[in-house]
């Protein structure tokens, strides 16, 4: 059975508008997350991977690709928000509010904006707002996300 593989507390019924979460783990962005993922996805902007060029820029160092930041923040929120997802439907209003540098640590926060029925009766749609902060508390990322999540009534053991 697949029900043993995911938490019993992340089904559609477990989410309610207004619910807030501070996610348990933070992560430092190092070369693997920044340089490797940036190149993995064919991003050619060398401001993300040429330290000596960026030393001469107003930033003084390499910048982390905004979507590596966004993916990491959403990643930190994923176990609590999409472990029992059937599909991720979309994202919206993604904003990259402050630069992220190698060595920064990211933390994720989430608020449930809305829950609603889906066009199938074994799942529902949850709209989340996510924020990412770095170690000094600066908000570096925010964005909304919709996930199609299994209903316990159909999928729970």
């Amino acid at each position, binding site marked *: 059975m*697949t029900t043993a*593989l995911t938490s019993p507390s992340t089904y559609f019924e477990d989410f309610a508008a207004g619910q807030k979460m501070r996610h348990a783990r933070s992560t430092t962005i190092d070369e693997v997350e920044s340089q490797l993922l940036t190149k993995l*996805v064919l991003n*050619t902007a060398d401001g993300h991977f040429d330290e000596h060029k960026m030393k001469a820029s107003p930033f003084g160092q390499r910048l982390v690709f*905004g*979507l590596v930041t966004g*993916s990491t923040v959403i990643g930190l929120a*994923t176990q609590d928000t999409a*472990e029992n997802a059937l599909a991720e*439907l979309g994202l919206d209003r993604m904003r990259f509010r402050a630069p992220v540098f190698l060595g920064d640590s990211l933390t994720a926060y989430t608020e449930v904006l809305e829950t609603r029925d889906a066009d199938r009766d074994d799942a529902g749609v949850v709209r989340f707002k996510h924020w990412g902060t770095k170690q000094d508390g600066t908000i570096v990322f925010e964005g909304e996300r919709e996930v199609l999540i299994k209903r316990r009534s159909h999928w729970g053991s």
Partner: protein
Amino acid sequence: MPDPDFSTFPLRKKGNRYQDFEEGRTFEHHWGRTLSEADNALFATATMRFTPLYFNAEYARAHGHGSVVIDPLLVLCTVVGMSVEDLSEGGGPFLGVNDVKFHQPVYPGDTITGRSRVVGRRESGSRPHFGIVTWETEARNQHGNVVLTYQRTNLVAKRREPTR
């Protein structure tokens, strides 16, 4: 033979500037990318995307898929990545990404290509050497099906016209 004088080697310039983004102009982005199971496992684990659909094939099969599902954030990152040389390598940060829709799942072995159209541009009020450009991007798989659409807005550096 002496080493050449590298200062005489012409630079192979990359990227576009604000002046290149006439409204309605379309860019077919370079390369395309076949997304493999290895790409997916690396991306989904490095970003802690703890949804078993993305890294447990048996679980994915029990939910109606033929294999693991490619993490949609990897699809988004790859399409944006392939668009960078055309749209944003000329300099200027993201201002926002809106209305991202994942239209259908992508599976290991699928090949994704992207194209973008300029849907708006204006001068920056506060930064005279920059403008603000919005593009609509869509990505398709090898069957021609749309898998992803989104709108992206960036600050874009202007080409400095030579002063006489």
